[in-house]
C-alpha cells in the first residue's frame, strides 16, 4: 500500500511539491530527500501543495522547519498551499502561520514569488 507520495513539478521558476497521503515519522524521510534534492539543484522558490495531504504529524512539520532557513538565506521561500482544515489545524497549533506563508491555492503562492522579484 502506498501511504505517502511526493510529486514534484516546475511551474515557471517555482518548484511545486505535491504531497499525497500520510506524512508521519515513517514517510518524513521521503520529504527530507525531496528537499535535499531541491537544495543541491539550487531551487529555492518552493511551493508545497497540500491538497491531497490527509495527515501530518510533528515529524513532517520538522522537515519544513529544518529547511526553511537555508531556503531563505538563498533568497527563496517555502510557501504552503491548499491545506484541508484538518491539516491546517496541526500547523496552526504549532504556530506555523506566523513563520510561514500559507495560501488557499497554489496560484496565489506562485504570484507572490513573482511579485517579490519585481
Amino acid at each position, binding site marked *: 500500500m502506498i*501511504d505517502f507520495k511526493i510529486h514534484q513539478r516546475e511551474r515557471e521558476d517555482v518548484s511545486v511539491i505535491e504531497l499525497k497521503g*500520510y506524512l*508521519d*515519522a*515513517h514517510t518524513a524521510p521521503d520529504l527530507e530527500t525531496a528537499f535535499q534534492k531541491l537544495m543541491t539543484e539550487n531551487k529555492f522558490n518552493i511551493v508545497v501543495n497540500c491538497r491531497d495531504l490527509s*495527515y501530518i*504529524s*510533528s*515529524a513532517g*512539520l*520538522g522537515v519544513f*522547519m*529544518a529547511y*526553511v*532557513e*537555508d531556503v531563505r538565506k538563498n533568497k527563496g521561500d517555502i510557501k504552503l498551499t491548499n491545506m484541508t482544515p*484538518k491539516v491546517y*489545524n*496541526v500547523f*496552526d*497549533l*504549532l*504556530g*506555523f502561520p*506566523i*513563520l510561514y506563508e500559507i495560501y488557499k491555492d497554489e496560484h496565489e503562492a506562485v504570484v507572490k514569488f513573482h511579485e517579490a522579484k519585481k
Partner: protein
Amino acid sequence: MEMKAVHRSKKFLSRTDNLLEVRDFVGEAARAFGFSEEDAANIILAVDEACTNIIKHAYQYATDKEIEVTIHQDKRSFEIRIFDNGRSFDPSTIRQPDLKDHIGHRKRGGLGVYLMKKLMDKVEYNFHRGKRNEVRLTKYLSSTSTVAER
C-alpha cells in the same frame, strides 16, 4: 484512581511503518466511543506522537521492540495507555518549543510532547524502575471546547 475497564488492547512492533496501524486502531475506538471526527483526529495524532517518541527515544529506532496500546473507557472518559520497555524519557525536560529556535537548527524534539498536551485533556507519564514505561492520554467526551480555545 477509579477503575476503568480495558476495552481494547493491541501490541505493535516498534517500527514507524506500524504507525498507520496504530492510528487506525485508536481512530476506530475513538469514533465508536462517540467522539466527533475532529476529536478523533486529535486523539489519533496525540497517540501517533507518543508512539513516535517511544520509537525514537525509548527504543532508539530498534525495530523489534514491543509497544502496547490499551484503551480504557467509562461513560465520559477515553483513556489510552501506551507501554514500552525502553529507556525512560523524561518529558518534563521538554519546554514549550519556540518555533524560532527550531527553524534551521534541525532541532525537532519537543514538538510531539507539546502537541500531545494541546490535543488531549490530560497527559501523564509513569516511570518506575523495573516496570514498563507508561504514557497515559485522556480525553473527555464532554469537552466541547475546541483545541484552539484552550
